[in-house]
């Protein structure tokens, strides 16, 4: 782009001065609107000449004038039964993640969770369309170098291996729709002045995934996870970097409570942005309710 811009600017040096009289739009970019002549604008409005098109007396949908209709000819095969109710995880590639980190849109020195990814403004999530978080895909896994504490909602084995090979840790965590709504636009949520909700436990069909140490589920036994880290390293043939001896050990081992949505903020708290205070529940009932 810059080359063509330089060329054009150089050309402009030898051309007359640009003024209000010698500018124009690209040819053909605007077409003048014409008024139709006659009754109804001289048009049939897409209905054609006469017949069922104009009179709108169509046959009922699927009716084939007496044949066995197509929609009744074969037995029902419900391929997409319940499809609209399934949880969706829109993809983000490791290449994208690496780029976000390289461009300083994600801070490596802090745990990277869904809130951080959403705050970049690059990844869009629509919880009302049954989207439940990010699916980290393996594109760019071979060049992934960042040592991070990552929390995503879905990850394949190769992705887990790539993150752990680079010296980082990865967790898969479930967030319900209300929690996601709070995470979408944090400022907007805090301005509503309602307490931070508690994160719900995953539904029955997701419990298996999020308690599985091979999937690095957030409800899995930590000891089993460290075991699985070694197993995966042997399977893919890399030496597992020792995070215990790492300078950023504390950051890498930071985890959210299963009921927690934001790092450093507990469910039940109200964040007042105007007075810059955090209000914590005092009543015993509330404390008990928000306990994990």
């Amino acid at each position, binding site marked *: 782009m*810059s080359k063509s811009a330089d060329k054009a*600017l150089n050309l402009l*040096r030898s051309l007359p001065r640009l003024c209000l009289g010698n500018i124009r*739009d690209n040819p053909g970019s605007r077409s003048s609107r014409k008024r139709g002549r006659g009754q109804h604008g001289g048009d049939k409005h897409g209905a054609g000449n006469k017949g069922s098109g104009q009179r709108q007396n169509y046959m009922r949908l699927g009716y084939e004038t007496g044949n066995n209709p197509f929609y009744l000819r074969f037995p029902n095969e419900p391929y997409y039964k319940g499809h609209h109710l399934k949880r969706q995880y829109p993809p983000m590639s490791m290449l994208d993640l690496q780029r976000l980190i390289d461009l300083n849109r994600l801070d490596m020195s802090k745990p990277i969770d869904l809130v951080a990814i959403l705050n970049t403004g*690059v990844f869009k999530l629509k919880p009302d369309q049954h989207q439940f978080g990010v699916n980290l895909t393996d594109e760019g896994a071979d060049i992934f170098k960042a040592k991070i504490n990552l929390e995503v909602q879905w990850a394949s084995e190769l992705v887990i291996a790539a993150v752990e090979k680079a010296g980082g840790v990865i967790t898969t965590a479930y967030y319900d729709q209300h929690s996601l709504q709070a995470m979408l636009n944090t400022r907007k949520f805090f301005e509503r002045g309602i307490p931070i909700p508690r994160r719900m436990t995953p539904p029955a069909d997701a419990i298996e995934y999020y308690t599985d140490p091979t999937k690095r589920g957030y409800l899995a036994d930590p000891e089993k996870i460290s075991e699985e880290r070694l197993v995966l390293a042997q399977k893919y043939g890399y030496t597992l970097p020792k995070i215990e001896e790492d300078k950023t050990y504390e950051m890498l081992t930071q985890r959210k409570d299963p009921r927690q949505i934001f790092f450093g903020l507990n469910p039940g708290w109200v964040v007042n942005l105007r007075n810059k205070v955090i209000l914590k529940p005092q009543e015993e009932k509330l404390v008990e309710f928000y306990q994990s």
Partner: protein
Amino acid sequence: MLANILPKLRNTTSLCRYFSSALTTNENIEPRHLQYPSVYQKPRQIWVENLDSIDERKLGLIELHPTVFAANPRIDIIHQNVRWQQLYRYVSYAHTKLKFEVRGGGRKPWPQKGLGKARHSSIRSPLWKGGGIAHGPRSPTPHFYMLPFYTRINGLTSTLSIKFAQDDLHVVDNLELPTDEKSFLEELVKSRNWGPSVLFVDDTDIMPRNITAATDEIKHINLMPVYGLNVYSMLKYETLVITRSAIDLIESKILENLNRNDDKTFTGKYKVNQV
């Protein structure tokens, strides 16, 4: 052939000007720190000139951001901006009367049948001389619309780049004149070949007294704060003279908008047709 020679000629004349009339002084002009440095384009350079004497003195070189001052010169986007600026505040008051608005015509001029004449129901029908007008212009017709936000930004960068490329952009240290005589300013503009019409741009709307008094009586030399800078005015005036502080402000404002990550939510409020 001509196109090949002309830029060279232009360069030589400008070089002559630099070396003959211009005295480069040693006044310290602070180098500029460019925000969001461009990877693909080199920064451009421009002389900072003086306004306190008719003779031109070069006070120093400063750098300009290539994204703002060497952008792709999109003439079509400039045209769209100018068209928008002319149209958004234009209301057409052209007006014609419909059939029922024209005086008279309530009576059927002659019977439907039996006269051998064409059937008519009113002498004010659009078919009649002196009748109403079908589909004529109706007043008031507003022509307001909103140009997309980034088309407006690109219009500014394109125009600034063209002004700079065609040597119609000058940077001065400030707008302080030694006198409020209008003849001083006229002579200065003439001796520097700035063309008859000049637009001075400063970062604030409270300008120094002398230049305000001097330009008050000259209709083709005007002052404008940065917040009023627009494509139409830049093209209307032959030369654009911007103060150094205004350059900083223009650059930072445009670059901020070209590099923001919340542009979707930000530009949403400028959409006209929203539910």
